[in-house]
């Protein structure tokens, strides 16, 4: 029946507005919400209602909080507005032509943007910063997408050593449905082979794309992969160049994301 899933999703609008869904259901409902105007309107009204419940609970904040918040704000860089960027190559060319001064590497800016919050992401950023400071080719739109994952409130990090040497690190945001993967010190492969990433869920492994080639210092630039489902593990296997639809070798690493 076509109506019932929609009606069911509709019924969740209330629980969603009260933050009474678990993460998996919240993600599912948010995906539904993007395409459901009626739900958007309902959630807007429910959120305003919930805000009234919050105001009804208002109490005097503790002394000293204000000073601490204002002091923290004074040293915290703000996120830039979320503007739609043109196609990556185009945008870079234009910037090259008109504003060379803006061609700063994205990583330091990211690191600043996270300041104060996104503790998990900040932890990995120190690492990412080191491993990618020469990656000037990363485009603006990519960096914004990476930033969205790294600074997502539900961002979580998992890191582990691989049987191919070195370490693999993942920052994942189930709410964004994406992860950022980076590695350092994994052994170089012949050109006929690649490292391929996989999401491991209840069904067959789902390809999360190929690990980009490592730079001279042996680290791979952070790469974004979409399609992450809540509860997925992330694995890396060695596959023939171009990748495969299903893994053909034993993973060199399997990373479990903290709940």
């Amino acid at each position: 029946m076509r109506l019932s899933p929609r009606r069911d999703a509709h019924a969740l609008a209330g629980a969603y507005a009260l933050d009474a869904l678990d993460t998996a259901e919240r993600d599912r409902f948010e995906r539904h919400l993007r395409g459901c105007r009626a739900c958007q309107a309902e959630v807007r009204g429910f959120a305003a209602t919930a805000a009234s419940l919050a105001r009804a609970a208002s109490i005097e904040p503790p002394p000293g909080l204000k000073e601490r918040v204002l002091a923290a704000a004074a040293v915290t860089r703000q996120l830039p507005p979320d503007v739609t960027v043109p196609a990556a190559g185009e945008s870079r060319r234009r910037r090259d032509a008109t504003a060379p001064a803006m061609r700063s590497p994205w990583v330091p800016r990211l690191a600043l943007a996270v300041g104060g919050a996104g503790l998990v992401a900040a932890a990995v950023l120190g690492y990412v910063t080191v491993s990618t400071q020469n990656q000037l080719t990363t485009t603006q739109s990519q960096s914004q997408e990476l930033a969205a994952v790294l600074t997502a409130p539900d961002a979580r990090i998992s890191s582990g050593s691989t049987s191919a040497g070195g370490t693999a690190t993942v920052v994942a945001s189930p709410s964004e449905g994406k992860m950022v993967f980076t590695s350092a010190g994994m052994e170089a492969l012949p050109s006929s082979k690649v490292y391929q990433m996989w999401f491991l869920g209840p069904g067959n492994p789902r390809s999360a794309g190929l690990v980009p080639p490592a730079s001279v210092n042996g680290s791979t630039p952070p790469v974004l992969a979409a399609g992450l489902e809540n509860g997925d593990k992330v694995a890396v296997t060695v596959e023939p160049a171009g990748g495969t639809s299903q893994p053909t070798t034993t993973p060199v690493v399997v990373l479990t994301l903290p709940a």
Partner: protein
Amino acid sequence: MYVVEVHAMDPFRSAPDAAKQGEPDLDSLLALVARGDQDAFETVYDRMAGPVFGVIRRVLRDPAQSEEVAQEVLLEVWRTASRFDRAKGTAATWVLTIAHRRAIDRVRSETAAAEREQRSASAPMPAALDEVAETVEASLEAERVRRCMDGLTELQRESITLAYYSGYSYPQVASLLDVALGTIKTRIRDGLIRLRDCLGVS
């Protein structure tokens, strides 16, 4: 002092924000904050810290943890002001949505749960609901909400209170009230519809 919303003139700007005459509303303040205006942020703090801390405290109970989360939330408002989207609701709703969600995140994170247990073993019992309610600053808004809550069925009221103020997921609410999952989902939604209409928000 928090200023209570009086009435919703424009259904899309049912704002509690535009209360004080001659002062910019919270939506405009947030636009200034997004441009790095620290004075505007201080005003936003003055207007929102009470409800932010209040709702977090209501959910978490533990004063120290609540203060920590409130600080994170208010800093997040500063940091992400440019991402506030008027189309999704008023600035106050945006801020309070973040506050409640962060409190819930804290409840659901296991380490925090362990910490809480540890603390409650050594600390006195958390303040009872009524005790906290007595310190409520925005008494008019509290009164209005209480009146509208009275218009709900008992199941609707209990479901919403347990979910929003106590931070339970709806399956947990269903279990606490010994009611089927589907029923709780519906009661929460029906209750919110009634509450929304009674409060005159949209």
